[in-house]
């Protein structure tokens, strides 16, 4: 029995090692690529400023994709996050304009943004759980409605944000002293928030009961139900998480742009799905990880950045991105088949 436990421990380690090898492989490949790109861009690419720039640019997508990962692992999908970015953005801007005590305004705005996002997630999830509607439909409806409400609220015009405290969340810097050591002015706040979200989500998905249930539901919903899991509550939970994180991502975007813009977030839902899929999460549910999603978001961010540095035309960038998504997922599928065949 002790032997069995030891064997299990070994197997876990082996599994851990296998995924470690995979990650090391990816990183080695990435490093080679990065060095090559760095040479091609005459050193611009790996300049500290540019690296921070990439990370700051992917913060919004990485946070959206994190929420999306939860939904997709349950074999669902959330098409509403792009529109929710717009809706919560304009509502936060409106809140900031309406409250005159600056610190209170920031606090209320944050609560409004995240609560409205989470509430919209609950509206997405309820018909899925109660009536078995496909999440594609409920979130598509929310995508249309949230965008519409955002336009109605602002009459189509952006709402400016002049609250310095709020705007610092988008463009402020932390730890300037530490930054000086590596010749940067500090670590941008959005990067810190993104890392916190990724770490927390990774913990929830990988270490908690809720996380285990998310995988079980995606793997076999009926078996999960018969195991006594409150399937409805867990599914509702993932849509609320996705909506709330859309509110948080919107906060970073609005703070960076100093305004709430009803046109913002267009197509973000697809960008987030792309990051999740490139990160190895199965659209069929049951498999995937936050770490993978982060790598997916990073890869897409790096790609855009490199193409910009190499002066690739913006229309062509879309073509390249599409092709990369296809190839990445195809390679992952072939890898799985190879492993299954052994």
């Amino acid at each position: 029995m002790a032997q069995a436990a030891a064997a299990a421990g070994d197997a876990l380690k082996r599994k851990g090692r296998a995924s470690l090898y995979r990650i090391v492989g990816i990183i080695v490949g990435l490093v080679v690529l990065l060095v090559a790109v760095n040479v091609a861009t005459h050193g611009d690419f790996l300049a500290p400023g540019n690296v921070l720039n990439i990370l700051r640019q992917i913060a919004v997508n990485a946070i959206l994709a994190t929420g999306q990962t939860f939904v997709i692992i349950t074999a669902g999908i959330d098409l509403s996050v792009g529109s929710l970015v717009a809706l919560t953005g304009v509502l936060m801007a409106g809140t900031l304009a309406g409250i005159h005590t600056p610190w209170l305004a920031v606090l209320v705005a944050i609560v409004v943004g995240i609560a409205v996002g989470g509430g919209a997630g609950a509206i997405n999830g309820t018909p899925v759980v109660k009536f078995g509607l496909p999440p594609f439909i409920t979130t598509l409806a929310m995508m249309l409605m949230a965008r519409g409400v955002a336009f109605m609220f602002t009459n189509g015009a952006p709402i400016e944000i002049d609250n310095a405290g709020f705007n610092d969340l988008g463009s402020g810097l932390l730890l300037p002293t530490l930054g000086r050591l590596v010749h940067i002015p500090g670590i941008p706040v959005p990067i810190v928030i993104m890392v916190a979200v990724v770490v927390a989500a990774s913990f929830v998905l990988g270490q908690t009961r809720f996380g285990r249930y998310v995988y079980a539901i995606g793997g076999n919903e009926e078996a999960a139900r018969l195991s006594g899991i409150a399937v409805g509550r867990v599914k509702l939970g993932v849509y609320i998480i996705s909506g709330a994180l859309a509110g948080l991502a919107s906060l970073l975007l609005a703070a960076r742009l100093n305004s709430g813009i009803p046109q913002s977030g267009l197509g973000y839902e697809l960008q987030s799905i792309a990051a999740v899929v490139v990160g190895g999460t199965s659209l069929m549910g049951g498999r995937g990880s936050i770490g993978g999603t982060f790598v997916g978001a990073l890869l897409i961010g790096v790609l855009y950045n490199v193409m910009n540095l190499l002066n690739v035309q913006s229309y062509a960038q879309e073509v390249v991105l599409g092709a990369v998504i296809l190839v990445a997922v195809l390679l992952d599928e072939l890898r799985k088949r190879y492993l299954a065949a052994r």
Partner: protein
Amino acid sequence: MTDAVAPAVTPYLAMHGVSKSYPGVQALSGVDFDVRAGEVHALVGENGAGKSTLVKILAGAIQADSGEIDIEGKPVHLSSPKAAEERGIAVIYQEFNLVPSLNVAENVMLGREPVKGLAVDRPALRAQTLAVLERLGVELPIVAEVRTLAVAQQQMVEIAKALSVNARVIIMDEPSAALTQDEVGRLFEIIRTLTKQGVAVVYISHRMDEIFTIADRITVFRDGRYVETGDAKNYTPDDIIRLMVGRTLDAHFPTLPPDPPRDKPQLSVRGATSPGRIDDVSLDVYPGEILGIAGLVGAGRTSLLRAICGADPLPKGEVRLEGSPLRLRGPHDAIAAGLALVTEDRKSQGLVLGMSVRENVTLPHLELFTHNGRVDRREEISAVAKLAAELRIRTPSIEQLARNLSGGNQQKVVLAKWLLEKAKVICFDEPTRGIDVGAKAEIYELMVGLCRGGASIIMASSELPEVLGMSMRLAVMRQGRIVHVFARGEATQESVIRFATGTAA
């Protein structure tokens, strides 16, 4: 010129010495079977007798390992469903192969639509369908979508479809299972119309009354072997039942513990009713007892177990555990109370195949391993490793995906889920379906062990030897009701079948 000899009846279809094996199972061994034009030939046998395997071979869905199949005296190779169709063999399964959203005519002519230019020639489509229906002597709304039709009408569509491809032999697998008495009468009229036109019908059923009403000849299979064939008029239902079960009970069942004292039931069900599934079912199970439930397919065995364990809602009736009524809003409540359901289909209901053995086992009771919101993996590993050793789950590691285990070991994983936190009542639905003999014996031993530990077991099974060999008391269900409960040692295969088929006096 010699005397006029009556021509020997050359059967349309004949099988000689056909065998088929699956890993660990000899499904058919050297069986003979023949079908003459225009006859109704009943094929009978218990579950596992090899009927479905034979049907699949004739349908071209699988190929025999050895043996010969002749059509009109010439050997043929039924390499695919298409090949079987071309040889005039059609199969009507219990699960119809219809497209629910297409209309009757479109279904009947599916894949063979008459065309005019590029478009489907709708008038011709309807005319051809009508012609087929006329041959059958039935009327159907040919432009109605199939999903709007009653089951009996859908069955007619299937038969029409078979006829439209000029089937010479139509195999019907349990065709009356979902039909009312009147509808069965209509079905028999249609079958007689078919046979008058020279079409043969292979009728597979458990229902003795139907077989003796419609069949010209009867063939009995048992344990994958051919037993005998004869004219129906030479048999009585009792003869057939005896031929079906005529064997000694397999000796691989463990010795059951003596009956427990029956003073306080562990689980009581009173008046459990779910329309169309179970009808006013009451039963008691005592600690340390195994209650077997027998019955034909569709008799309500699975529905009863699912209702007891909260998997399906129970609109009417009560489930009491140790005397106190349970409120079952879902599986969660049942599990919390100590009821466990080992479902009949472990792949679709029992396991998350893409998760490891460890993750599957701890799924119902993850709270045991959660401290401060975090699941402790080391605790999980030691608990599951212990169980895996006790149950002798054969897997390289408990981190192996459930998908990669054999059927028997998968079943042990399902069982382990409910042993982690000792369940008081365990409902087994087809506990050994699709697993090999060795693993079966192990599962039986485990069940006995659970009983000795004071658990109550309700076991539903369609394998008669299993329910007979493993039950202390045996309840027989028919059409949603418990029609008889045998005390220990009273039940025989014949008597159980009589109650299950409704032929008991």
